[in-house]
C-alpha cells in the first residue's frame, strides 16, 4: 500500500514537472510579471530548402529554433515592460 502511494506521488510529481517544460525548440520565458510562455522562433523555408530536404516540407514549410538570449530578452521586455 505504501509503495502504491509513493508511486502515485512520484507520478503526479512527474506530470507537474513535465508540464512546466517547453519542447526542444522552445525556451521557457518567465517575464516576471505573471506570464510564463514557451518561446520559439519560426522561420519560413525558402524554396531552395523546401526542394532540398524532405524534412522541411514535412513541417509545413517552416522550421523552428530556440530564440537567442537577446531575442528572448527583447520579447520579454515588450511583453512585460
Amino acid at each position, binding site marked *: 500500500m505504501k509503495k502504491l502511494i509513493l508511486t502515485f506521488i512520484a507520478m503526479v510529481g512527474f506530470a507537474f514537472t513535465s*508540464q*512546466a*517544460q*517547453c*519542447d526542444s525548440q*522552445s*525556451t*521557457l*520565458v*518567465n*517575464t*516576471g510579471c505573471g506570464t*510564463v*510562455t*514557451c*518561446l*520559439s*522562433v*519560426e*522561420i*519560413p*523555408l*525558402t524554396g531552395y530548402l523546401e526542394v532540398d530536404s524532405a524534412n522541411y516540407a514535412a513541417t509545413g514549410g517552416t522550421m*523552428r529554433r530556440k*530564440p*537567442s*538570449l*537577446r*531575442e*528572448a*530578452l*527583447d*520579447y*520579454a*521586455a*515588450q*511583453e512585460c*515592460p
Partner: protein
Amino acid sequence: MKKIIILIVFSIGYCGLSQTKTTKDSDFLISYQLDYKKFITSEANLSANTLLIVTSQGSLFTFEAMMNLSKIQQEREITIADALANRPPFYFLIKSDSETTVHYEGIGSDTYNFKEKLNRVWELINQDTLISGYSCKKAILNYAGRKWSGWYAPEIPIAVGPYKFHGLPGLIMNIKDSEGVFNFTVSEIKKGNLVTDSRIENYFVKDGARPFETIDINEFYKIRGKFYKMNVNERLQYMNRDELAKPTYLITDLNGEKVRVNTQPKTRNFIELVE
C-alpha cells in the same frame, strides 16, 4: 653623516608608502537609484540601481544588473534565468575620462559605441540643500533636449556624476530633468581599491549578439528611435536582417496553446530627446 643618510632613506620610504596608501583608497564606488518613467504614457515611476566607479584612469557608469552579468560572464556563459533576473531598463555602459566619454549600448542584437565630448555648460545657482548628510549646491544644464537640475557636494571634490553628467566642482548627488522622467539620487558612497572588468563585452548579453560596432552619434539615435518603434516581430526580423527568410515568434503557453502577444509598441523615454 650616516644618520643624515638613514634619515633621508627613511623619509623617502615613508613618502612612498603613504602615496601607495592614498592611491589604494582613492577609488570610489557610488550607487545611484534611478527613478524613471519607461514610456511617455507611464504614470508610475520604476526604479533601477546604477553604479559609478571612479578610478585614477577614469570612470565607468552602468546598471547594477549589467555589473552582475559581467561577474557571471567572467566565469561562465549566462543562462536565460541569469539574463531574465538581471534586466536593466537600458543596456548601456558609459566609460569616461576627463574630456571624452564612450557610450556603449545594446539595441536588439547590435551593440554600438560612439564617442562624445564632456564639455557640459553648467550654470551654478546660489542655492543649498542637504543630501545624505552632505551640504550640496545647485547647478542647471541643458543636455540633449532636456533641462536638468543637479545638486553637487563640494566636499567630495570629484567632478563626476551619473550617466554623462560630469564637470561640476563636486560629486553630483542628485540630478533630474524638468519633466520628472529621469531622476538619479546617490544611495551609497564607498571608497576603496576597485577593479573593473576591462572586457566591455562581458557587461552585455553575448548570445545572439553581433560584433561591437563604432558608429556616429546621430546615426545611433536614428537606429535606436527606429528600433523601439517596431513591434515584437519586426524587431525579431531586424535582429535577423541578414537572413533571407523573415522569422516570427511562436509563443505558446505550457500546454502548447498559442498565446496572443501585445504587438503594438509603446513610445519609450530616453535620456536624450533627440532622434
